[in-house]
């Protein structure tokens, strides 16, 4: 077998990156217009879509970068400080 110098995508290769978070994004589904911009912009691909087309965040891997909150055109995502413990 050839040792190919390639990287294959795998979940959690760098551990549960959700532990890094200081602030977590919280979606207010009453305001969400399902525009999918948060889903598109998330650099870690941790936002998936529910059956109803609503964005769902995987907090195990969300690093809390806040890009989704920044991009949300209707300010439906708020960055909330993590509670310790």
């Amino acid at each position, binding site marked *: 077998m*050839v*040792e*190919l*110098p390639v*990287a294959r*995508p795998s979940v959690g290769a760098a551990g549960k990156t959700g532990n890094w978070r200081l602030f977590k994004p919280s979606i207010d589904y009453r305001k969400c217009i399902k525009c999918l911009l948060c889903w598109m912009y998330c650099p870690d691909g941790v936002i998936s879509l529910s059956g109803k087309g609503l964005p769902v965040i995987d907090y195990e891997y969300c690093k809390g970068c806040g890009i989704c909150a920044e991009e949300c055109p209707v300010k439906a995502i708020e960055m909330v400080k993590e509670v310790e413990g």
Partner: protein
Amino acid sequence: MREFLTGNYAAAYGVKLSRVEVVSAYPITPQTSVIEKISEFVEKGELKAKLIRVESEHSAMAAVIGAAFSGARAYTATSAQGLLYMYEMIWWAAGSRLPVVAGIVTRAIAPPWSIWTDHSDFMTLRDAGWAMLFASSAQEVLDMTIQAFKLAKELMLPVAVGWDAFITSHTAEPVEVPPQEQVDYFLGEKKKSPAAVDFENPFAHGALAFPKDYPKFREDIHRTLKAAGEVYSNIERRYYEATGRERYGLVEEVFCEDADAVMFIMGAAAGDAIHAAGELRRKGLHVGVARIRSIRPFPRNEVEKIARRASKVIVFDRSYSLGFGGVLATEVRSVLHEEGVDTPVISVTGGLGGSDLSPEYFEKIFLKGLGV
């Protein structure tokens, strides 16, 4: 079919018969007519390949790397300065384990400018993870080019086929061109390359390797190339079975069995050395020529065996490691030292920048080697 071809045209025929799918190159003397002939084949529809015109050799190698990533059979050719300009991509091709083939029409490196042969450009590939074959006639350029595609695929490494500027590249000689069906049979069904892009099972190339991972990739290339002699010999045997062409192994031995002095030499000038050896044999002197056909894999076993039998080894280099000496001589000495062979080794460097190497010149070297 017997054709009358230059070395460069023979390379183009080899590419055509191998059904290469992508060719990318930038013209440089003395390589130019390789690509001219290939483009003629493409234009006439005799070769269904994409010919990618580029602005530099760096891009030419990048283009064939891209083609190989898509699983295509890819070829390029260059010389001297062009190869040096390609050098970063040369390492990418090997490190990424891509089975591309490159023709290297050897030409001395500038400055001062020269368009004539020596092997300094070819030898720069030595440490880069490429398999390196070297032809001494147009016939061998054709045969080796076809064999190179098979070798590349089996090693999952790029293969360079070298031949001398003008002396081989522009000299015309009768060449047996095997029929297409024989080459098709030899190369076999095209299989999917493990390094090729796969949409079902995606992966990223060009990733970072941490210190704990990096060595295993280098070790794998090293092991693969070191063991490639047997792979090449099998390929040569299968080529012989398919086409009936000669096979030589990694080293062609002429008059070596009972020779007191054996000369190791690579490239077209080996023919002149063989002629000189024949003349000296007629005068009762036991000399032989061992023509090196592969630098990587290096023919360790053959070199050891030949040198052990002889009382004097002469290594003729057409390149220098400047400030150290002949490149081939250094490698031969290293093998003999490791194997405990104490036959004295004389290193001779000559023919740089295309200076003419005649049989008379080689006779003198043999006589000096024999101490006559």
